[in-house]
């Protein structure tokens, strides 16, 4: 299968005052990958994916998605292009039902397909929402207020919302943080399912998850790309070991 570049950044930088959180990153992501972005704390991982999602404007550099320059697009327009972002700190609508949380994502995707002003079909929204809830194992909890769920399930609501958007690129920011081991095992299976239809980019601290899931790994350190390669290559990379262990 010919590889197609989905996302490309050139010289992407973001300064916060004197700090260069992201510093001249040239990054390429192919369609169909599961890419892990790892690095020590403060390496700029969250800032980098926030730049891609449009939550943070870049200081310099450009972002191309499906060959088109999206650097100046606001976040909501990038979501409509197919870049979905799930939050590191769970940011769901706590007072709304689980169903409504995911339905919001689904109707956004439907609105994109139907075009502005088109009448959305509530049955279609319902069907796709229940599909996303089935996939994440949340169907039985559809009517509960999302804020009353256990933490692990709230993380799954985030993922279900990401799925509901039917994205081309799903960005998961530390998705397994705070999950128990059995929950993590389920989660790995879920990401594999998602990856059948979408490209996945995840920030992750849990190395077992990274090595298990990722097709390629990008290592960030102090805002720059330190190394990039397959899990095996990264594991063998002396610079990565140095950055992580400081020896």
């Amino acid at each position, binding site marked *: 299968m010919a590889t197609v570049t989905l996302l490309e950044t050139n010289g992407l930088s973001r300064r916060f005052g004197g700090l260069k959180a992201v510093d001249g990153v040239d990054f390429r992501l192919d369609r169909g990958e599961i890419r892990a972005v790892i690095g020590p704390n403060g390496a700029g991982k969250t800032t980098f994916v926030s730049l891609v*999602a449009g*939550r943070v404007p870049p200081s310099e550099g450009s972002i191309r998605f499906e060959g088109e320059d999206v650097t100046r697009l*606001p*976040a*909501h*327009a990038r*979501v*409509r292009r197919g870049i979905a*972002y799930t*939050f590191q700190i769970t*940011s*769901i*609508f*706590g*007072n*709304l*039902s689980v*169903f*409504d949380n995911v*339905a*919001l*994502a689904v*109707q*956004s*995707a439907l*609105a*994109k397909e139907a075009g502005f002003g088109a009448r*959305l079909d*509530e049955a279609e*929204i319902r069907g796709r929402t229940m599909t996303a809830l089935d996939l994440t194992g949340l169907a039985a909890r559809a*009517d509960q*207020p999302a804020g009353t769920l256990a933490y692990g399930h709230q993380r799954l609501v985030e993922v279900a*919302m990401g799925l509901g*958007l039917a994205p081309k690129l799903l960005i998961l920011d530390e998705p397994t943080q705070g999950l128990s081991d059995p929950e993590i095992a389920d989660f790995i299976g879920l990401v594999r399912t998602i990856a059948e239809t979408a490209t996945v980019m995840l920030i992750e601290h849990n190395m077992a998850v990274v090595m298990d899931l990722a097709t390629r790994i990008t290592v960030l350190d102090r805002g720059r790309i330190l190394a990039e390669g397959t899990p095996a290559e990264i594991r063998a990379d002396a610079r990565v070991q140095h950055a992580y262990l400081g020896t």
Partner: protein
Amino acid sequence: MSAPAIAAPRKGLADKAILLHVGVLALLLAAQFVLPEYHALSLTRVMLLATFAVGYNLLFGYTGLLSLGHALFFAAGLYGAALPAYHFGWTAPPAFLAGIAAGFLVALTVGAVALRTTGVAFMIVTLMFAQAGYLATLYFGNVTRGDEGLVLTDAVRRFELLGLTVDLADPGLRYNLALALLAAAIAITLVVVRRPIGRVLVAIRENEARTLMLGYDSYRAKLVAVVLSGTISAAAGAAYALLFAYAGSSFASIHYSIYPLLWTLLGGAATVLGPVLGTLIMFYLIDLASGFTTAHLVVVGLVLVALVLFFPKGILGTVRERWLPWLP
């Protein structure tokens, strides 16, 4: 904590909600046959003001935007209808449409500017717009006759429609027109909150940053809410001017920005019928209290304190929370 969310539309439950609203409107329709004249007239007023509150609630209750300037939209409808009727002798139907159009344009303009701000700044900007509007009605006193107001003649309130002579001075007709307007406002609110757009408005109220990250242009959605809310408010104002043959500056004053907020809070923000109930209770509270004391606002104040203590989410908001989770 904000009010609980609207329930997701479900078959069966949704029908129960429709039945309830149709039932309430049927009750109001039947009331005119049993109520004495004085109370029928009061209820006519209450239904128009409740329409105003229903419009306000769409923005405040569902979208979570607290406007302190809705008197401007009510007054835009009021004067939009009264001025052409008074100066150019327009009859009621075109004057009513002119009031609605005026409200639509004012809401679009004010919304486009005020929505660049959020939170407290939004309250202040809407308040300032409304005060500017109020002062304008006084400044152009030669056109609006300021506080004294415009009194519409019976000629503009009597017109031919489909071969019938309609006279807006007729109390029974006024009652039913006010009811029809309220029914329309309730129907619009129900449709909006049960359609996908309603879900987006509630999402903006709950967490605007997240709503953006789901791909929604929240500015555009909020502008839709302001325009819809302002236009319904203006329709109430236009109907008020035409049915009661009067338009004065007091309707543009700060009081008429605060009233819909109080009515909505009393009845329950983000419930479709809450503003109607709140308007009814507040109106009769003032009416009854002023019967035995000139300090009737003290009574109103005590009731509001009790409300905050025992019904922090308003009457219907609390009812929904405790007993009827399906209430839209």
